[in-house]
């Protein structure tokens, strides 16, 4: 289907706008309006995306430069840390013994018994708090393993036992010490109740 343009349409249109064009004021208003509208149109569809892209690229460049510097600093500190780690590699078992990753309560019990044997005192009661024996997820937080024990012996042996405890590689903290005389025998034996806790870090 062919669309035929009326040949008189242009002349009719020209005749209609001719009086308007003659007025200078109208031309000024028209040009002003056309300028603002075209600026708005191009601002919306061309200038805005271009400016935003440019600004975001400039910002990305500066941020990536900053990150690059930070990464370089971190790589240097990792190398330094690796050297330091090599120096203390031999001491790692000591750290593991002082602060194990799991409660290792049998070792706590064995340690307490060994010190009792060394100090020639007798353990009457030993209680260790309930702990999970499965491997715990890494938290990076210190956990406590509480224990309580009643020992009996002479004053010197008990003092010796406490010194052993305080000098134990498994870091332990004593909450309370309670001395009482052992009335069950006629000897000068003392009974000591110790409440304390040791640590582990999963």
């Amino acid at each position: 289907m062919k669309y035929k343009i009326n040949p008189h349409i242009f002349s009719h249109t020209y005749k209609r706008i001719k009086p308007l064009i003659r007025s200078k004021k109208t031309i000024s208003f028209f040009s002003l309006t056309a300028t603002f509208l075209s600026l708005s149109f191009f601002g919306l569809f061309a200038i805005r995306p271009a400016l935003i892209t440019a600004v975001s690229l400039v910002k990305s460049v500066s941020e990536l430069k900053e990150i690059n510097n930070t990464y370089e600093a971190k790589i240097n500190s990792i190398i330094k840390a690796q050297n330091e780690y090599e120096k203390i590699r031999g001491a790692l078992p000591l750290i593991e013994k002082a602060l194990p990753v799991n409660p290792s309560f049998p070792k706590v019990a064995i340690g307490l018994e060994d010190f009792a044997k060394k100090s020639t005192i007798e353990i009457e009661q030993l209680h260790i708090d309930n702990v999970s024996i499965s491997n715990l997820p890494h938290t990076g937080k210190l956990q406590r393993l509480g224990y309580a024990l009643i020992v009996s012996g002479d004053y010197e042996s008990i003092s010796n036992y406490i010194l052993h405890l305080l000098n134990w590689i498994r870091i332990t903290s004593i909450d309370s010490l309670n001395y009482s005389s052992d009335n069950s025998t006629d000897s000068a034996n003392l009974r000591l109740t110790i409440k304390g806790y040791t640590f582990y870090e999963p």
Partner: protein
Amino acid sequence: MNRKELTILSIITFITVTVWIILGIYHTKINSSIEGIQLKNTTPLTASFDNDIIKELEKREE
């Protein structure tokens, strides 16, 4: 709508678009393009160990 109203409308449109462009640029400037993972990887690392503690541990009994 006469010619004066049309001009005022075009001026308002222009001002709106200009403000929009300025706000868009400002928004782009204040928003970081770095992802959280990258920021997490750039946290500082202290590369020092307390050797005194290790010496202290060596003195303790097992």
